[in-house]
Each structure stands twice: as C-alpha cells, then as structure tokens.
C-alpha cells in the first residue's frame, strides 16, 4: 500500500530523513511515534504528496504522491493537526465536498457524528476545535479511502472524545484499508493500533506488529532486583519497578506503549537486535 525507499528529506536548515525505508500494509492501524521534531508530520505530508522528497522513492497505492493526481487524492484522506473547515453547515460541507470522494458513505458519516454527539445541522464555524476535529475525523472515516492519515488526532479531544474515537476507529478499518496515526501522546493510541512505528534521528527505529511485540517483550511490575538489573528498560514506581524485558518465558503481558517507546528510545540497538532475531 505504501512503499518508501531510501527517503531523504530536509528543510532548509535541518535534515529530517536520511534514507528512511518503510512498508505499510493494508488492513492495519499503524501508530507513528517519535519525539517532537523527529518528522512524524513530515512523513505523513510526504505520503500525502504535500512535501516532496529530496531523493528516494515513495509509492502510495501505486501512485507517486508528489503528482497529486485525482485518483490518488480521492483514495487517501489526510487529517492534519492544524486543519481548516469552511464557514458552512455540516450538511453543506458534505454536499460540496463528499462528491470528490468516490466511496463516501453519508449514512456512515451521520452515524459517526451521532457517536461523537455532534448535531448534523451544526455550522462548522460555531463548533469548538475538538468538535470540528470530530467532524473532520468522521468525514475522513466515512470517505472510505484506502489510506487514512491522521496527524495528532487526539489533540483537542476530551476524554470522552478519545474513547469515542477508539470505538469508531476499531470498527472502521478492514482488510483493504490502512490508517496511520501519528501521535506524541502515546497513551492515546493504546488499544487502538496494531502496529508500531517509532522514528528517530532520520530513520525507523522500530516497525513491528503488536502481536510480535507482545511475543518478544514483556511489560510488568517487578520487585526482583536482578530482574530489574537485567531489564531493557526500567522505571521505579511507588511500589516496585516497572520493567520492559525480553519475553523469555512467553508470558502474556499487556503492552504498555509508553514504556515500549521509552525502552526503544533508551536502547534502540538492543530493541532492534531483539526483533531482528
């Protein structure tokens, strides 16, 4: 679905990617994690054809995104962190924008709006930032595009909105679609994504499915000093120490994305070697 080879990208005074490779497969929800300024939004913009690579290849659904052909644009939907919605009612917005998306489903859109508790007859400019974001997310999901790119979708959403988003998105993906969600609020992606991509210093540090992460790593609270000492990453708690360790005993533990992220950033080579085995 998305194939990125040897991507080099830089802004005038800062190099972002120096040979990034990435494959995105259909049927998954990817969580794109990384520090501020590591290039999460830049990567999404390159995939959407809003930024052009300095060198390397990007193929999205068989298209070169930089050409921004209508057939490509109608099969992806990009929800940026900062977005614009016109000063019209939701109904009018749908009337004038949805025809550009071949597989847009208005019933689905209305259902998502209802889930987010936003009246269909609202005017977009009279909604709060979070409500506008919910409208855009609903529209993006109802557009039924093969690829949905979401840049920090949980920013501005309240607690209820985040759980509504999780519920909606879990039902939205099928084997033909993919969703890439970038976020620095790692906790927001828990129970939502099935693959993790961590980027740092111009490249991919980790690109693994949740199942494989669970099989290779264990996340637990330990009171055993030697276990803590041997852990890949540890953090003291009020009681005990939370650790990320190699899953030697094939334990089933709940993946803590925040710990995974911290462990990867602290020991990138070790984590990579574990998954390369």
């Amino acid at each position, binding site marked *: 679905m998305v194939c990125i080879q040897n991507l080099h990208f830089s802004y005038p005074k800062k190099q972002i990617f120096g040979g990034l490779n990435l494959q995105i497969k259909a049927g998954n929800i990817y969580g794109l994690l990384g520090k501020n300024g590591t290039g999460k939004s830049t990567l999404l*913009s390159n995939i*959407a*054809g*809003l*930024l*052009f690579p300095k060198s390397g290849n990007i193929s999205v659904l068989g298209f070169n995104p930089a050409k*921004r*052909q*209508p*057939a490509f*644009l*109608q099969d*992806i*939907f*990009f929800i*940026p962190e*900062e*977005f*614009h919605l*016109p*000063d*019209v009612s939701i109904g*009018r917005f749908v009337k*004038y*924008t949805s*025809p*550009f*998306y071949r597989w847009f489903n208005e019933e689905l859109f209305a259902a998502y709006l209802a889930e987010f508790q936003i009246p269909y007859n609202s005017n977009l400019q009279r909604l709060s930032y979070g409500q506008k974001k919910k409208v855009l997310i609903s529209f993006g999901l109802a557009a039924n595009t093969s690829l949905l790119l979401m840049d920090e979708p949980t920013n501005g959403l309240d607690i209820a909105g985040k759980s509504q988003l999780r519920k909606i998105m879990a039902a939205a993906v099928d084997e033909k679609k993919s969703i890439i969600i970038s976020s620095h609020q790692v906790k927001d992606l828990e129970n939502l994504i099935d693959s993790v991509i961590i980027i740092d210093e111009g490249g991919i540090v980790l690109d693994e499915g949740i199942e494989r992460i669970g099989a290779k790593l264990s996340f637990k609270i330990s009171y055993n000093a030697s276990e803590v000492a041997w852990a890949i990453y540890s953090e003291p708690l009020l009681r005990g120490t939370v650790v990320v360790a190699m899953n030697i005993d094939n334990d089933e533990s709940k993946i803590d994305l925040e710990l995974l992220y911290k462990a990867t950033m602290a020991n990138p080579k070790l984590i990579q070697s574990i998954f390369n085995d």
Partner: protein
Amino acid sequence: MSQLFKLRRFYLLLGKHWFENRKAYLLFLVTIAAFFTGWFAFTLMIGNPYSFGPYNQSMLYFGGLFIAGCLSASLAFRDFATKPKKINYLVLPAAIAEKLLCVLFYGVLIFFVAYTLIFYVTDYLALKVANNANAAMLAGHSEKAVEWKQRFGLTGDLRPSKLINVFSPAADTYIFYPGDNVDLFSAFFPIQSAFILGSAYFAKNNLFKTMVALLLLWLLFFVVEMKIFFPLLPENVSVSSVLTNATVIDNKGNETHYTLPFWIGSVATFLMRFGITPVLWIAIYYRMKEKEI
C-alpha cells in the same frame, strides 16, 4: 486523460469554490458598486457637465478595472497564505488544471463580467440622474449653463452625456490615444495574470511583492534596451516603431528607412497582446504543481 481534466469534477470544483467563497466575492463586488456609486454621487454633487463625459467614464472604467483586477488577482490563491488552508486545497481530489481553471474562471472571467456589469449599471443610472438634473442647463438657456460655458470656454450647446462603449475603439472615448481601449485590455489581462502568479508564488504580502517584481522587470527591460539593444545598432539610427521600422541617417544627412515585413510586426503585436497571458497561466500551473506546504 481523467487525471488531467474531467468536466464533472470541474463542475463540482466550481460549485464548491463558489459556495465556500461566495460571501467574499459578493462583498468585493458590493465594494466596487459602492465605490462607483460614491464616485458618481460625488460627481453629481459637483454638477460639472463634463464629469460624465466619455473621457471620464473611460478613465473610471479602466482605472477601476486595473486596480480592482489586480487586487482581486492578488487574492486568487489566498488559500496558500495559511498552512491549514493550503493543505485543504492541495489534498482536494481535483486535477491541478481543474483547480487552475477554477481560479481563472472566477478570478478572470467572472470578475471581468461582474465588474463591467456593475460599472454599466451604476454608470447608466448616474447618467440618467445627471442628464435629468442638468436638463435645463443642457438646454443651454439657464444662468448656470452660461456660467459653465464661460468657465470652460465653450461655444456650442451642452449635450447630454452618453453611455460609453468600452469595447468600441470610438474616437471620443480614448484616454491616451484613439483606439487605446484595445491596448488597455491587452495590458490588463497580462498584468492581472501576473498578480495571480504572484499570489501563487508569494504566501504573504503578495500584492506588494508582485508590484515590486513587476517594477524590477520593467527596469530590467529598460536596462537591457539601453545597455544591450541600442549599443548593437549602428550610429545615427532612430527606431520609429518598436518592432518594425528603423531609420538610418548617414553623414550627409540622407535618411534610409528600413521596414521589416508586415507579418513580422503583426505576429509580434499578436504575441504581445494575446501571448503573454497564456504564458503566465502556464507558469501558474507549474507553480501549483510544485507547491508544497
């Protein structure tokens, strides 16, 4: 082909563009109408019978056309001014050619038609009012008529003002020289297109930046002409027509006229009148293609 242009998609784009921008467009047109109305009202208050003459009407039409046309053109790509709007515009599933044609449809065609209509409606009404108000004076018998005739040194009868035809090269409606309306229109569309291009190139302050860029181009043209073109010519040459005629005066004072074939002048004139605008539109197309956030 459907990736380059599709009629249905173009119609959808026109509809969406109008719906989202109609308030701004209508406000702009109302402003133009208000300006004309204010101008005519001011002129009526002065009561000068010459104020509605063909020259003044032409000046107002073309002056307003250039100012309003360049102002509206500088707003053609106002979506590029902010990142969220730029993203919204660039990811909309329509071909670049469709997006460009949409901008040209509203920014050039609709603007021109609407501007001309507004001018004619306000001008027609103003002339009606002026001619009625000045009916006695126009008859030439009132004291005011005598006063006006003395002030302007008129000998004949005062005549009612007539609506001008800006598209007709009539002798009495010119500003600079007879038939200059064709050249004014020929200059307007390239200049307007240059401002649209400026709007696509410069994200902020594009009106000012485009004016500076055009001024620099103008200066460059003169520098090239004075420093490169004229030094290439032999001494004692005077170019009497920009493109086709030159006169050489030898040491004895004999003049020799050189005239290029008529078709060269015709082709050059045609290209200058109608060639620059499409070239600028193509430049806008490529600028849109390479636009990033």
